[in-house]
């Protein structure tokens, strides 16, 4: 019992976070006949795969005590790069860009001591501008092999399922089975004491920001390949959606607590809500409003010490 309590403090998981997607699932099964069709479920999966990839990256930064609002812009720039650069160079270049953005965020936060929100807002704005400069109008041709990776159906299952399971396993392994994961929790819970125990908190945080940007690039690649065209602003909603998803899943924005399972639950909640609203014919603009309400609810329930930013 005690062990369970200690665990829930580390994972930040609450029964509500896990019950929410289940309740939504049951509700949607009852209210819409098309919801349970295999086609729609595959659709939900491919709709949320990009969000899942980006949210897991966001969660790693959050557990280490930071936040990254540049996720959406990085996805947009990835998309812009994929359709403008030579196909053989596109993917390496996109990942190099991700590393660069992550380094800038991480160094700004650690060595220049800028508040993570301000720092990532700055890089978000810059990267979004750059993306629009690279690819001003949506369109272009996505390299064929990427298209295959995103929309093919190996073994009769949608490719998005393999992407999702892959990143979930990777993130789970990273956070729960490696030194890196342990250090991430330590740095997020108390950077000073982690430092005294021989973890270079600054260097570790920089690594977390780089990972988050790499996850955003991956999400951008998947989304671009799935849509089949480049769009510099395709990630616009993702910065806040990732924060909403992980906050719903019990990842503490103050750092030190969170779990892969929670992030998956949060992503499912958001995905089911938007799919459900789609099926029930509710205006897509209201979806943004609902995300806002969920975000307010999720972070309003997280207690923290400081008032302000």
């Amino acid at each position, binding site marked *: 019992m005690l062990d369970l309590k200690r665990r829930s403090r580390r994972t930040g998981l609450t029964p509500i976070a896990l019950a929410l997607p289940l309740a939504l699932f049951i509700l949607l099964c009852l209210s819409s006949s098309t919801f349970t069709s295999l086609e729609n479920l595959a659709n939900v999966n491919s709709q949320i795969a990009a969000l899942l990839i980006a949210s897991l990256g966001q969660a790693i930064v959050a557990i280490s005590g930071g*936040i990254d*609002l540049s996720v959406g812009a990085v996805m947009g720039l990835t998309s812009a790069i994929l359709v403008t650069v030579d196909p053989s160079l596109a993917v390496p270049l996109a990942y190099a860009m991700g590393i660069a953005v992550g380094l*800038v965020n991480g160094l*700004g936060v650690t060595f*220049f*001591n*800028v*508040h993570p*929100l*301000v*720092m990532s*807002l*700055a*890089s*978000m*704005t*810059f*990267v*979004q*501008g*750059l*993306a*629009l*400069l690279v690819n*001003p109008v949506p369109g272009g041709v996505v390299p064929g092999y990427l298209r295959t990776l995103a929309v093919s159906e190996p073994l009769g299952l949608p490719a998005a399922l393999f992407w999702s399971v892959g990143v979930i396993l990777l993130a789970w392994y990273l956070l729960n089975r490696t030194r890196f994961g342990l250090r991430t929790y330590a740095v997020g819970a108390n950077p000073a004491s982690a430092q005294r125990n021989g973890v270079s908190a600054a260097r570790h945080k920089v690594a977390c920001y780089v990972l988050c940007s790499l996850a955003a690039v991956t999400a951008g690649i998947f989304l671009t390949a799935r849509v089949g065209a480049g769009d510099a602003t395709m990630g616009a909603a993702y910065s*806040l959606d990732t*924060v*909403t998803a992980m*906050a719903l899943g019990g990842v503490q*924005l103050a750092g030190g607590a969170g779990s892969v399972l929670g992030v998956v639950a949060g992503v499912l909640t958001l995905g089911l809500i938007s799919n459900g609203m789609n099926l029930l014919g509710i*205006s897509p*603009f*209201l*979806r*943004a*409003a*609902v*995300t*806002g*309400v969920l*975000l*307010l609810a999720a*972070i*309003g*329930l*997280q*207690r*923290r*010490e*400081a*008032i*302000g*930013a």
Partner: protein
Amino acid sequence: MTDFATSPSTTTGQRLRAAGSAVASLPFAYAATLILLIAAYFMRPALLSPMLLLLIARQAAPLGLAAIGQSLCMRVLSIDLSIGGVIVGVSYILTGGLLPFSDPVLMLIAIAFGVAVGLLNAFFITRLRASSVIVTLAVTLIITGVAVAFSQLRSPGDAPEMLRQVSRLKIGIVPVALLIWLAVLIPIAVFLRMSVFGRYIDAIGANPRAAWVSGIPYVRVVTVVHVMSSLFAVFSGFLLIGFVGVGSMDLGRDLALNSLAAVILGGVTFGSGKGGVLGPTVAALMLTFSFNLLTSLGLGEPAKLMLQGLIIGVAAAAYSIQRKT
């Protein structure tokens, strides 16, 4: 002999150094304005005609008003990114045609709406202690989502005649919008300098924990600041809607980030307890001027965004280095 010769020179040296550090601690906006004006003189001298400068100042008025509110928020270690959302809300209230009231009543409703948004922000930030950036972004999502969803039902109407007049009228050659900006700015600056409330703001900004334990009405101050910020956003929205003439759901979308850039450039940073109203004001003028310069050089939206990002990032980093040393 050497003593006589060196001692006055060291004092001038010290004085020079003191003056130098005083200049160095001035907001970046001042130096940046100077550089921009010089750059404009060589590249686009036409921008420097008094006529155009006054027009640019008029154009800067909404940003200037929003920046006052943003600067107050940042001085109490908070951030208000709901400015864009408030303006969209105001635009919808005034031009959406949903409410069957006369223009003055609609403007009062818009003001009440601003107060409500400010109170909502403040409730989440102070009572539930949620991150101000996330709260205000979420509020923006909600307002914009609802307003855009409803505005699909009918096309937006014209702006109230009064607001259009305000944006068009001039006294002599000075636009009325500019005068309104000044009429709001000066009393606020005096009030913040003379009042206890201004001291509270500085105390919270300098050391929140010390301010909390010494019994300063922390929650009340942050609440009032957020309500003020939303009210400034409403007034800024009034001016914008007057400029455009018709309602639009795209109004003020970049105002939240621009005001953040203006405030950081204007010398207000987290955790210093410093910062005035003049710095952000100069920065608002400077930013608007630089956007005009970029447009005149044929660079569009992407360059503007990149400049904004660079300004926010570099200025914030430079200030925190300055503070550390």
